[in-house]
């Protein structure tokens, strides 16, 4: 389990910005990089720049807890996440990069009769949608993950769980680097330390961006800036229904294998897996206040560890080595916003909130399609910005109450 692959001798090519591109992608996180890759691979569009204001993929892509699953409630969500999961299943070969994709299964625990109903409902919806899903009783939970405390004495006893065997984890940095290298091999320019500070417009149309490294023209500007999308959108007078919050995570010291799967619990709020080196990787809920600063409050961590020890008594003397925060972009229905903006030349991809890592290849695929055709891909068509005007929400929040 402590196995970590040898890193390749070559990563992406760092490029200098050109004067103009066919497509400029703002934000070099996983989504921006995957989009650039699929633009080149699926649509032959290689005159593409990915602009990243800091070091590449240093935003949420470097900070997430890497949980991958596709067992979302609604058909629209299951569609795009399942598309992503299928891509994950061959991504390592596709990118020629070791991304440590491990299908070790994901458990979502239920701790109340209502969570049992919701879990059963999600399993049925998943089965109809063609997503692998099982309902496990507490004993079966213990078989999949023997360290979960399934004692009825628990303050909120485990009453069962949904289980997606094909879910799992991957190594976030390697995924980003794999996409970056593959994209740059196809001719995409990856430009770091290049912050977008404004937009150039003609007759209402966006025709380029202003950056800390000069002006860059573009036929299409595609936003992919996660927690900072609202800041960018504001620069063109576009209002997006996003709330940015800090979301924290942490790792423990390296431990011999103890936790074979991924466990998520909403009521006893924590989710945890054991990464390849042996560290426990954990997260919980967002910090409640709005913020653009990548730091959170310690009481959130305290609460998360209380939950971890409650559910996994064996973790009592594991140690926290490091805590950190990312800025997540939460939409009103906890579903992403992808597609046209009403402003010509400007596309948007945001609102993935606490759960967009797992979508990385899927959204790259669909966003690239959207950019190439000027029309949403069928899988992201339900996730338009104007659903907040029409009311056709894809509410994964109230309905499923499972984030990440």
């Amino acid at each position: 389990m402590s196995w970590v692959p040898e890193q390749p001798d070559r990563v992406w090519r760092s490029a200098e910005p050109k004067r103009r591109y066919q497509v400029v992608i703002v934000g070099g996180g996983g989504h921006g990089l995957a989009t650039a890759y699929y633009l080149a691979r699926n649509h032959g569009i290689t005159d593409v720049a990915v602009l990243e204001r800091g070091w590449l993929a240093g935003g949420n892509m470097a900070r997430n807890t890497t949980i991958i699953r596709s067992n979302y409630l609604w058909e629209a969500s299951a569609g795009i996440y399942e598309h992503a999961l299928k891509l994950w299943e061959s991504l390592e070969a596709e990118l020629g990069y070791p991304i440590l994709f491990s299908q070790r299964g994901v458990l979502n625990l239920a701790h109340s009769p209502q969570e049992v109903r919701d879990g059963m409902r999600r399993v049925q919806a998943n089965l109809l949608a063609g997503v692998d899903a099982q309902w496990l009783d507490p004993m079966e939970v213990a078989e999949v993950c023997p360290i979960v405390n399934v004692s009825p004495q628990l303050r909120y006893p485990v009453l069962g769980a949904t289980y997606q065997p094909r879910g799992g984890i991957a190594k976030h940095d390697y995924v980003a680097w794999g996409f970056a290298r593959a994209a740059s091999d196809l001719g995409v320019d990856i430009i770091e330390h290049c912050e977008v500070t404004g937009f150039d417009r003609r007759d209402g149309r966006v025709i380029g961006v202003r950056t800390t490294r000069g002006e860059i023209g573009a036929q299409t500007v595609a936003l992919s800036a996660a927690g900072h999308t609202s800041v960018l959108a504001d620069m063109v007078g576009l209002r997006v229904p996003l709330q940015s919050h800090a979301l924290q995570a942490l790792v423990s010291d390296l431990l011999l294998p103890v936790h074979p799967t991924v466990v998520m619990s909403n009521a006893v709020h924590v989710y945890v897996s054991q990464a390849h080196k042996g560290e426990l990787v954990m997260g919980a809920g967002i910090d409640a206040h709005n913020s653009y600063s990548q730091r959170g409050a310690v009481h959130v961590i305290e609460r998360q560890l209380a939950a971890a020890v409650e559910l996994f008594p064996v973790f009592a003397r594991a140690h926290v080595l490091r805590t950190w925060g990312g800025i997540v972009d939460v939409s009103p229905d906890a579903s992403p916003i992808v597609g046209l903006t009403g402003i010509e030349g400007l596309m948007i991809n945001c609102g993935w909130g606490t759960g967009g890592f797992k979508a990385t290849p899927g959204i790259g695929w669909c966003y690239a399609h959207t950019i190439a055709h000027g029309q949403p891909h069928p899988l992201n068509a339900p996730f338009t910005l104007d659903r907040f005007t029409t009311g056709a929400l894809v509410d994964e929040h109230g309905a499923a109450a499972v984030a990440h």
Partner: protein
Amino acid sequence: MSQPFRHPDRGRVDRTRPLTFRFGDRTMTGFAGDTLASALLANGVHEVARSVNLGRPRGIVTAGVEEPSAVVQIEAPFPEPMLTATTVEVYDGLVAHPLRGQGWLAPEPDSARYDAVWAHCEVLVVGAGAAGIAAAADAAASTGDRVILVDERPPRPSEVPAGVRLLTRTTVVGYYDDNFLVAVQRRTNHLGAAAPLEQARERLWRIRAGRVVLATGAHERLIPFPDNDRPGIMLAGAALAYLRDYGVLVGRRALVYTNNDTAYRVADELRGAGVDVVVADTRADAPAADLPGARLSGVLGDRRVTGVRVAGRQLDVDAVLVTGGFSPVLHLYSQAGGRLRYDDGLGALLPDGCRQRVEVVGAAAGVGLPRCGPPPMPEPSDADGRTFVDLQRDVTIAEVRRATGAGLRSVEHVKRYTTAGTAHDQGKTSGLLTSATVAAALGSSAAEVGVTTFRPPYVPVSFATLAGRDRDDLFDAARLTPIHDWHLARGAPFENVGQWKRAWYYPRDGEDMAAAVTRECRAARTGVAMMDASTLGKIDVQGPDAGEFLDRLYTNVMSTLAIGAVRYGVMCRLDGMVFDDGTVARLTADRFLVTTTTGNAAAVLDWMEEWLQTEWPHLRVWCTSVTEQWATVALVGPGARGVLARVAPDLAVDVESFPFMRWRDATVAGLPARVFRISFSGELAYEINVATWHGYALWQALMTAGADAGITPYGTETMHVLRAEKGYPIVGQDTDGTVTPDDLGLGWAIRKSTKDFVGRRSLSRPDTARSDRKHLVGLLPDDPTLLLVEGAHIVGHTPLGPPPVPYLGHVTSSYPSVALGRTFALALVTSGRQRIGERLYATVNGTLIPVEVTSHVLYDPEGARRDG
């Protein structure tokens, strides 16, 4: 010989208290005051671990928390993984084990206690070295302020300045906003098995400080050279600490390898203690050096240093003591938001301004540190693969160069590529070396390359410590009603509803849940029954604008409510979806009592406060939770009036005097009470509210008064069945955040007037106004004995066919019903109201069950039973 490397008289250990411990398979002795590292060194043991990837033998490098190498597993008295031998205090019975990069967790639960305390002070001083003690003394003397001085080491005989509260064995691990710091105090670890169980093993201190003084000192650095990870190679300052503090000689013949003058003091003192010392200085201009301008090019020995190649010579040594200068410890400063600047003279980072009230003093501010620049980096050579920057992660110069060679430029990327700086020590001694290697490889400067972000905690903290008391019963303390003990005595199982424990049903001898619920339902529909409804959320809303305020939050109008009247109300979120429901009673002209669902009480109060505080601060309204001030008993069934009349003789209970949806003040069972005539079952019902402390008495009085009528207590399951028979939705069960009032058949509760309310605009959006939305309907399985699974999906066709299979909705509630004489369910179904009478199928795991769609009101649709 026991402890052959213990100096006869130096050090501060207590030689009158020998201690026995085991390391690996060796039993050894040390003294009180030893760390595991000092005791091992006293016994001549240098090799204490293996490296994680390469399996190389590893020794002890430092004498403190920055230890990169000597990581051990504690096995007894209780297993704890990955502790640094340099910080574990020795006690009798300690059993530790060398590790190879990964520790293990005890399978049995940790019985130790943990807790947390708050502290407030004007001045918090972190670090009780000379600078810290001086700062604390100063602050205490000049102002009389509350001063807390925190130090990670055990208590020392040195003097605590008057007026200063000293916390020892306490490490500040996090520095957050508004001068909020978190520290971990190790209270009983050093006692081993003798630690009293009732005392918290570790305590979390949450300290709010007016200002903070960081006197956190500096960490000495290594100089990279080939095989610089061999046991016996350590920091020069550590060797000095082992001598001074523990009376331990780290070797007999030592090479001191330095780029700065602090080495000479170390050499002198070691010589004074009888060690042969040769000083090799990397600087050409080093008159006191035995070997000036020297480069250490090789190390002999594998599991212990036996010699070195330096300045073209080979020397037999058993210890190599290195100093590559010092780096101020600025982790906390950086966590606080402090900026850092690279100082060429020190070859290290220095504080450069912070938005919080914090000051850095002493070595942490660079005071007294040698200005020797960064440690000299080796020229590229084929020994790079054996020249380590991060010992714990087995990261060599070659590996860092491979990262830059692959195209990486940022230290953050190099960290992630090599894993340098990700171990238990978070790169305390390796961070700058990694940066320097990157800088050298890129032809840039360490200042430009920078370092990776410092993040809490400063040292590893066990999960249990951060969990504190929030474990087991206190994890999320259960809320109990004043009648709880009665339910318990009756053998009721409990259901968690929010934080509350609610009685689920009351089995009589031999009854299972189904039998008990059948009996309870029958009593409520045909006789008289009662339920503890104390957990319902209750909010007292007062003020001249209270009516206006409630009008804005509820879909129906509340301001027109007469005093003495009660109205059912629905609240929506901004998106027009049902958020909560309950009743509103008008108590006086400017006072309302609002009830909420049990689970949503806090959320509704938050919602009210959010609107009041952020959007409508001009409204004169004040909200107070009174959930726990009232005990509520629902008295239900055709026989309810008779029982109430008996316990409330002064209350006119006839239909005309006390009609439906009214409340009355009354004396019930001799207790001051407020009685509501509302019903969640469709039967004649009263909800009797008394002060919480009268709840138990009320309950017993009703049991007695109803005894001859066969009064039957019922739990939440019966409540659910009764309300479902009547088609009353439960928010959170029959709704899921995507359901409008109209979807639930509550269109009547949406006001017709144009006056705005939260969610109104959303309800007129095209999708929300569609007629083919999902509606709450009833489902009757063709087989009247078959109970549908809640969560089953509804499809309109058979067979299912291959996925993706389109579906129409799902089952939200499903029960056997004694009143209906069959099973039934509620479901949200697309165009449900247009489908009444249709045949659909419920599907669970691929099986299909035929059902008929009906109205969601299955029992007494005329409402004939309301008045008894």
